[in-house]
C-alpha cells in the first residue's frame, strides 16, 4: 500500500514524512534530537517515561513524541519553554525515586538517566527523596544478572524485551501506583524463576537496575596470584564488538588488538574459543550424521530428530524450562566454552605441564548466560570447575581501561598455541546461522567428499536477520559409506531470539515442520547481539557486527572446521575420534527439566 506523505513543521522547519511516522522520527529526519528513555529501536512503543514530550500547536497537552503520529499541517516545538520545564521536571522526578549513588554504580558513565541529568544540569534536588530503602537490596542470586530495583526507572524496556524478543516474561510489571515495580514471579530471586539468563534486559536497561554479575575483581585476583596459571579464551563475537566500548566504531574488527591487550593484562596464555567451536562442528556434525543414520537406516525409534544445537546456554535453559519434552532433541555437545574448559584442564594442562588445580580458565564472552553455564554441576568433567570465571565483552573493556592500556595504539598479536588455532567456520558461530553454516561446510564434505555447492563457501540461505530461516540442501553423489543419504533433502531451520525459538518449537511439536537440524541462538542476531555485548544495541548495530563477523571469516586462510590443524591434532593425540570415549567424557553433557515456577 502506498503511504501518503505528511507535511509538518518541527521548530519551524518544514519536513515531509510518510503517514504513521512518529513525531520523534520526523524530528530525527531534521537532525533534531529529542531525549528518550523508554523508547528502544528493538521494542514496541511504550510512551511511559514522558521524557520525549513535545508541544504541538493547538493541543491541550504535550505529546509523547515517540508515540504520537504526525498529521498534516502539524506544528511541533521540541524545545519550547513548556517542553523544557516539563522535561526537566520529569528528569527530576525520575531522579527523586532513583538511587543516584552514581559513583558506586556499575553503570557509572554508561547510564542514560545520568546523561540526561548531566545534560539538564540537575543541581540540588528540588523534590523529596523517594528512594525505597528496601529496593536497595540487590538480587544477586543469579550468576548472570543482578537486579537493583533502587535504580529502576520503570521504563519497562526489560519487560518488553523479555516478553517481545524472548517470549519469556521472567520480568513483569507488578502492583500499581507508588508500589509499582518490575518483578519476577512472586518476587522470587532471579535464579529461581524462568529467566534464561540471556541478559537481553541488561542490554536495554537505561540505568544500573539490571547489570551483569561481574567477576572483574576475581579475575584480577587470579592474575595477580603467582601460584595460578591463568588462561583466557575469547568467544567469536567478542572480537568484532570489543572496540565499541573502547571508542572505536561499530563493526571494527579488533582481534589482534584484543589478543595483545589480554597479554598485557597479564593472562598466562591467550587462547581461542574458536578452536573449540571448530571442535564442536566435528562432534556435532558427526552426531547429526550418526542420528540420521540411526533414523534412516537402522530405523531406530529412540533416535530423536530434528537435532538441535546446544551452543547457546540461554537457549538451553529456556528449553529446560519451556520444552523439557524436547531435551532429547538437543545435541549432547557442550558449548565451545565448556569444551574449551574441559580440554584446557586435561589435554592442555598435560601438554604444558601445569597441574589442573593450578589453572584458572577465564572466558571472555558476549554472553551473560555463560556465567551461569560455567557454574552448572555438569561442567566439571576435568575434575575441577572447567571454566572458572566468565567476563562479558563489557567487563573486558573495563579491565583494559583499568590497566591503562591505550587500545587504539597497541599492536596486534597472535593467539598462543595450542588451543589458539581456528578457522572461519568457527568465527561465524558469532552470528545467527553461523553454526549451521559451519556444520554444513563440514558435514557436506564428509558425506560427499566435495565442498558445499555455494560460492566461496558462503551459504547465503542460512544468513540474515529473519527471525526464523529455513533451508533445504539436496545431498547428491555421496561417498559409498553415506549412500543412505543419496538424494536426501537436508532440511534445516535457524532461529535467533527466544520468541522465535518458541515459534519454531511449536512448529516442531505440532509436526508441521519436518527438519533434520535446527540451530537456535538465544539472543537476537546470535552472539553478536549477546547479553554481554557493548551497549547500546539496535538492528543497525547488529547488522554491522554481523558484517564484521563474515568479513572475519572471509579473511581467514582456513574456512572449514575439519581443516583446523590443531583440531586434527587433538583427535590424533588425545581424543581419538569424534563421539569417541574421551569425547564422550569431556565434550558431551546432558540436560535437566526445570519447572516454570
Amino acid at each position, binding site marked *: 500500500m502506498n503511504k501518503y506523505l505528511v507535511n509538518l513543521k518541527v521548530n519551524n522547519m518544514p519536513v515531509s514524512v510518510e503517514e504513521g511516522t512518529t513525531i520523534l522520527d520526523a524530528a530525527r529526519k531534521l537532525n533534531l534530537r529529542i531525549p528518550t528513555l523508554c523508547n528502544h529501536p528493538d521494542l514496541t512503543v511504550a510512551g511511559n517515561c*514522558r521524557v520525549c514530550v513535545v508541544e504541538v500547536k493547538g493541543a491541550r497537552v504535550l505529546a*509523547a513524541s515517540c508515540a504520537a503520529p504526525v498529521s498534516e499541517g502539524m506544528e511541533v516545538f521540541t524545545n519550547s519553554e513548556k517542553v523544557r520545564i*516539563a522535561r526537566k*521536571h520529569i528528569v527530576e522526578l525520575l531522579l527523586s525515586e532513583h538511587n543516584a549513588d552514581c559513583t558506586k554504580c556499575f553503570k557509572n558513565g554508561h547510564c542514560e538517566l545520568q546523561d540526561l541529568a548531566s545534560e539538564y544540569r540537575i543541581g540540588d534536588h528540588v523534590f*523529596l527523596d523517594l528512594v525505597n530503602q528496601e529496593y536497595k537490596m540487590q538480587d544477586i542470586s543469579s550468576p548472570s544478572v543482578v537486579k537493583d530495583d533502587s535504580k529502576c*526507572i520503570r521504563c519497562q524496556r526489560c519487560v518488553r524485551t523479555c516478553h517481545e524478543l524472548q517470549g519469556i516474561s521472567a520480568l513483569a510489571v507488578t502492583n500499581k501506583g*507508588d508500589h509499582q515495580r518490575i518483578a519476577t514471579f512472586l518476587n522470587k530471586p532471579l535464579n529461581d524463576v524462568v529467566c534464561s539468563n540471556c541478559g537481553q534486559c541488561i542490554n536495554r536497561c537505561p540505568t544500573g537496575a539490571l547489570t551483569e554479575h561481574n567477576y572483574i575483581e576475581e579475575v584480577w585476583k587470579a592474575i595477580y596470584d603467582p601460584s595460578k596459571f591463568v588462561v583466557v579464551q575469547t568467544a567469536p563475537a567478542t572480537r568484532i564488538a570489543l572496540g565499541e566500548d573502547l571508542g572505536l566504531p561499530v563493526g571494527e574488527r579488533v582481534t589482534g588488538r584484543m589478543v595483545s591487550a589480554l597479554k598485557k593484562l597479564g593472562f598466562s596464555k591467550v587462547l581461542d574459543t574458536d578452536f573449540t567451536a571448530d571442535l564442536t562442528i566435528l562432534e556435532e556434525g558427526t552426531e547429526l550424521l550418526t542420528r540420521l543414520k540411526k533414523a534412516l537406516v537402522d530405523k531406530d525409534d529412540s533416535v530423536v530428530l530434528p537435532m538441535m544445537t546446544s551452543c547457546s546456554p540461554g537457549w538451553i535453559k529456556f528449553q529446560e524450562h519451556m520444552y523439557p519434552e524436547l531435551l532429547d532433541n538437543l545435541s549432547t555437545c557442550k558449548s565451545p566454552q565448556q569444551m574449551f574448559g574441559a580440554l584446557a584442564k586435561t589435554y592442555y594442562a598435560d601438554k604444558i605441564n601445569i597441574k589442573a588445580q593450578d589453572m584458572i580458565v577465564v572466558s571472555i564472552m558476549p554472553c551473560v548466560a555463560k556465567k551461569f553455564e560455567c557454574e552448572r554441576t555438569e561442567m566439571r568433567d576435568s575434575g575441577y570447575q572447567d571454566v572458572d570465571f566468565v567476563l562479558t565483552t563489557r567487563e573486558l573493556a573495563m579491565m583494559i581501561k583499568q590497566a591503562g592500556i591505550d587500545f587504539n595504539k597497541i599492536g596486534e598479536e597472535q593467539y598462543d598455541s595450542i588451543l589458539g588455532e581456528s578457522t572461519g567456520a568457527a568465527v561465524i558461530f558469532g552470528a545467527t546461522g553461523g553454526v549451521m553454516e559451519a556444520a554444513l561446510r563440514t558435514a557436506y564434505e564428509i558425506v560427499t567428499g566435495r565442498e558445499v555447492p555455494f560460492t566461496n563457501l558462503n551459504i547465503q540461505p542460512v544468513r540474515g536477520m529473519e527471525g526464523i530461516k529455513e533451508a533445504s540442501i539436496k545431498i547428491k553423489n555421496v561417498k559409498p559409506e553415506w549412500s543412505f543419504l543419496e538424494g536426501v533433502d537436508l532440511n534445516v531451520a535457524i532461529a535467533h531470539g527466544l520468541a522465535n525459538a518458541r515459534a519454531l518449537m511449536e512448529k516442531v511439536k505440532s509436526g508441521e515442520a519436518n527438519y533434520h537440524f535446527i540451530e537456535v541462538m538465544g539472543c537476537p542476531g546470535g552472539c553478536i547481539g549477546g547479553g554481554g555485548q557493548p551497549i547500546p544495541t539496535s538492528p543497525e548495530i547488529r547488522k554491522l557486527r554481523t558484517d564484521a563477523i563474515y568479513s572475519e571469516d572471509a579473511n581467514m586462510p582456513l574456512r572449514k572446521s575439519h581443516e583446523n590443524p590443531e583440531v586434527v591434532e587433538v583427535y590424533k593425540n588425545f581424543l581419538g575420534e569424534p563421539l569417541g570415549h574421551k569425547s564422550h567424557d569431556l565434550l558431551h553433557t546432558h540436560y535437566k527439566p526445570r519447572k516454570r515456577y
Partner: protein
Amino acid sequence: METKLKKVDIIFEDDKTSPITILEKTIKRSADEIILDLIDSGLKGRGGAGFPTGLKWKFTRNEDSDVKYVICNADEGEPGTFKDREILDRVPEKIFTGMAICGYVIGAKEGYIYLRGEYNFLLKTLQSKLNKFNGELKQKNIDFAIYLRSGSGAYVCGEESALFESMEGKRGEPRNKPPYPTVAGYNSKPTVINNVETLVYTTMICHMGPEQFKALGTNDSRGSKVFSVSGDTPIAGIYELELGMPLNQFVDEFGDGDTKAVQVGGASGHCVPRKKFNDTIIGFEGIPTGGSMMIFNSTRSMYNVLHDYLEFFTEECCGQCTPCRVGCQQLLKGIEAVKRGERSPSYLDDLKNLTTTMKIAAKCGLGQSVGNPFNSIIDNFREEIIY
C-alpha cells in the same frame, strides 16, 4: 425552604413504555437520523469529560470495519460518585436499550458492560435481566447481544483505554492516544464507550425526541444530569438536576447551613470555596462533574481532604508514566513535609508548578487531573495546609 433548583425525572421515570419498545421504534429510523437527533439534543458524555455523544457515535459509524463494539463504562470509581450504581440497579433495561441502539447506529453486534469490581453484588441480577433482554433481541431478530465483564477494583480502569486493556486480559494501563477508541478501542476495533448515564439519556432522547432534553440546561450544558450528593448534607443521595445551576443554589438546597467548600467532580475535580459559590456554574461552561458533589462544612480540615485525595491517587495511579507515578508521591509527601515544617510554605508553589507538568505531560486523564484538587485546595485553603 423554597428551592430554585429544577429537579428532573428522565433517568428513573417510568412512563410504562418498555425499553424494548423504544428500541424497536428507534431502529425503524435511519442511523443518520438518530445521530442527528443526538447531536441536536446537545448530549455530552456524563462520565465527566463531556465529549458530544452524537459525534462519538458518528465517528465510529464512519469507520470501515466488520467488527465494532459498544461498551458501557460502569466502572464507577470516582470518589463521591454513586449514581451509576443506582441506575444499574433500578433501570438497567434503559442502559441495554441505549447500547442496542448504539449497536444499530454504528454497526456493532456485540456490547459489553464493564462493571466496577466493587459492584459485583449487582452481577447476578444484572445477568438475569440481561439474559431476558438478549433473549428478546434474539426473538425480534435484532443482531446484537450484550455481555457482562467485571473489573477488579482498579480506579484507573475507568479510563477508557485502560478499560479496554483490562477487558483484553492485560494490565489495566492507559494507552497512548491517538488512536482514539472510535478508531481502535476494544480489540483494536472501532468502539463506542459511553458512561452508564449517557446511554440511558440516548435511550430517552430517542424515546422523547431531542426537544424536551434540549429545553433543559444551558447552551453549553444541555439537559439534566444525575448527581451524587454526599458529605456534610442532611439529605445525601441521588438527584437528577438541570445542568447549568449556580453552585450557591445547590448549596442552599443541600448544604447543612455551614458549608465551607464543595468538591465538584470527585477527587479529580475542583474544590470551590464558599466565596466562589455565587460565581460557579455547574456545567461544561463552569465546573463540570461526572456527578460527584462532596459538601464540606467548617469542621473539616482541608489538609485532610487533600491528603486523602493524594493518597488515593498515589495508590490508584497505574504507575507506568513518570509524571503521575512520581508526581503524586511528591505532592503527597510534599504537603506532609510542609505541614511538618520540613519544607517552607513556598515549596507549595514548586509543587503547583509540578502539577502544571503533570497536567500536560501525564499519559492519561488521571495524572492530568490531580492538579485540579491540588491547586484549588492550595489556592483557597493555603493556611490550612501550612498550619
